[in-house]
């Protein structure tokens, strides 16, 4: 896939997804924990689908283990984009 995607773009995409999942916009920031935003396991599954559909990055269940914040999620996607 394209390696021209920037970190900012991915972060913005994650923010947008979190809003769709019902997180309060003023709570969304890179270090916010998913749990504190009421983002649950199904939301994270959908987030993984979005990332796969839009960036071609496959995130498996084990990849997502331990991912608790937006920053960690974006790090994970960036590392997979290589």
């Amino acid at each position, binding site marked *: 896939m394209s390696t021209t995607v920037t970190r900012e773009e991915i972060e913005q995409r994650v923010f947008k997804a979190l809003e769709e999942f019902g997180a309060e916009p003023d709570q969304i920031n890179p270090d916010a924990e998913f749990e504190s935003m009421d983002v649950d396991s*199904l939301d994270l*599954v*959908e987030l993984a*689908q*979005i990332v796969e*559909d839009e960036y071609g990055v496959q995130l498996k269940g084990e990849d997502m283990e331990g991912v608790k914040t937006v920053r960690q999620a974006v790090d994970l996607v960036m590392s997979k984009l290589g």
Partner: protein
Amino acid sequence: MNGRPDGCALVTGASRGIGAAIAKALASEGWPVGVNYRSDADSAEAVVKEIVDAGGRAVAVQADISDADAADALFKRLEDELGPVLVLVNNAGVRADGLSPQIDDDDWQKVIDTNLSAAFRLTRRALRPMIRGRFGRVVNIASIVGAERANPGQANYAASKAGLVAMTKTVAAEVARRGVTVNAVAPGLIETDMTEDIGDGLLQLVPARRPGTPDEVAACVRFLVSQDAGYVTGVCLTVDGGLTA
């Protein structure tokens, strides 16, 4: 269609019997339908023709759903031709009857593969766009044989169908808040090719004193797929003329 999202329905094993009736019922509700079949192309085309002649849209799609690679190809083809699959009816099923001491591994596996594992794989594939689209309907055609009732000679079939009901309930709970419902329909004695060798003995136990028709099963599916059934999920709707009442 009351704001229903655009997409199509996939009915597995739809060249005849209950599957054909379901395909026609969903088409009459305005769903473009993928009529899946494994080997009987002529019958599948006849179902398609009937739907098209009645003003609906349908395509016949060959796939042996017990083949693990078949699901993705099947979905891609439908997505290209009819749009995203928003309704999945896991109807394809097989029997390989025998008393338990005589059911060999192949007959056990074949029935589990088609009736349970394939239904799961197709459901897993279908859920992705359904979850993202905030709408979806999965209906699994189970049986009263299994969770509801024993039928000697069908240990493999009963296990597959009971498993299908358990899967239905679990997946339903997982995805309910995305507007995706997952339900089962459990037919009793229904007049089809698959049941023609099941004798009159069982019929005498049916309070309705007659076998059901494929259309009567299809009517239940039609309801579960409808917008009206948006709050119905994780249930197994029995249609058996009172046999398990």
